């Protein structure tokens, strides 16, 4: 730590390190990642349950739910990627044809 720093800043930096060390040890521990994984699982279960309820309600009114939109987006993304792949394969075929001896 440079000696020309003002006292308040030195204190903040010392405090940050004093707190930061244990915090880093905690968030890098297996227990933390287990907790995060458990929290994610719980959140996902809750979201699925809530989405199931809202989906049934929206479908009763013949409206699309967020999950429907997500599925359509995933399908569109897959189709986009497939189209891109086909266009690249075509490009390769054309290049191979152009370089073939006549």
């Amino acid at each position, binding site marked *: 730590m440079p000696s020309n*720093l*003002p006292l308040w*800043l030195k204190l*903040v*930096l010392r405090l*940050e*390190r004093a*707190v*930061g060390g244990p*915090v*880093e040890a905690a*968030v*890098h*521990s*297996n227990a933390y*990642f*287990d907790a*995060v*994984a458990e929290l*994610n699982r719980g959140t996902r279960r809750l979201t699925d349950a809530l989405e199931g309820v809202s989906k049934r309600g929206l479908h009763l009114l013949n409206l699309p739910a967020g999950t429907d939109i*997500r599925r359509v*987006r*995933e399908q*569109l*993304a*897959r189709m*986009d*990627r497939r189209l*891109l*792949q086909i266009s*690249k394969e075509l490009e390769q075929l054309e290049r191979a044809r152009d370089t073939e001896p006549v």
Partner: protein
Amino acid sequence: MPLQLSPTDVLGRVNRDVERSYLRARNGLRYVRGSNRPKLGATPKDIVWRRDKAQLWRYRGDPVRFAQPLLIVTSLVSRSYILDLLPGSSAVEFFRNRGFDVFMLDWGIPDELDGDNSLATYVDEYLPRAVAAVRRQTGCTELTMAGYCLGGVLSVLYANGHDDARVRNLVLMATPLDFEEMGPMVAALREGRLDPEHLIDESGNVPADVLYSGFFMLAPTTIVAQRATLLENLWNDEFVRGFQAMAQWTRDQVPFPGAAFREVVELFVRRNALMDGSLPVGGREIDFARTHATVLNAMAENDTVVPRAAAQPAGALVGRPERRHELLLRGGHVTFGTGRSALRHTLPSLADWIAAHSDEHPQERG
């Protein structure tokens, strides 16, 4: 002895403090408003090739001194402008001023179209075409390839996986090979505590926010120290500019293509396969010692993103044993791009090494 201050000294200090208070208030307002943000990646350049999201940039500048152009291959997980952050604090600008013909391969920002991009997409599709474009632009046969972070791994795979690669010098900057040394988040992926499928969203990519969280959790409280240091230096325009630039880069992660991420987790993380000195990519096994290139493994001693222990094995695995060099640098992960240690030590060392392994250009480009 008691400190003697003359009235002139006191007046000078008061003046300085008043002026700094005014500057702090002005810069603080600008910072909070988000105005006056520096323009990043501003070194003049031309796009000389593109495919999908990938772009190849050629930087304009002084006459070229060296016959082999320098192609920088950037990482897949962060924005390339870390290597061209600000005028006066830019790796690209530095190399350009030292007489290198600098090209940078930027991968762009992946979206749902890129979810299927695998390692082979980068190694066998984009990199060979980008290198061909460099050759077309310069008329050179050989080049120097410098890969940063994960870009270094891609460079290793390209240089060893293509018979026509013609890489004369391969510079690896903070390139991780030993993923057992890559820190807690990678360990959580290895041990199955984190499921890669849960990190991939409906676009088929790992969202940028997930990657940011991963980097943030390396040292979650340092933001307090950084903000306090900013407050102290808020009067200093130059400091604020640098702080804003770094803060923007740190926050500005890009999504990671899902297919490549699955491969990284399975091959790099779970099998630690890079440590075998070869890797299956695109249906063949790529042997890391196959390249004829002279290899420089450059790592930073205080790197917390790619710890030295993770980068060190590249020095024993990549290239022919008689053509391997190693460089240990001061600083952290960004010392390859910006900062005081970059300009004083890292970039001059790298430029000197590349220059020593390049030919002088017979005709200088104007």
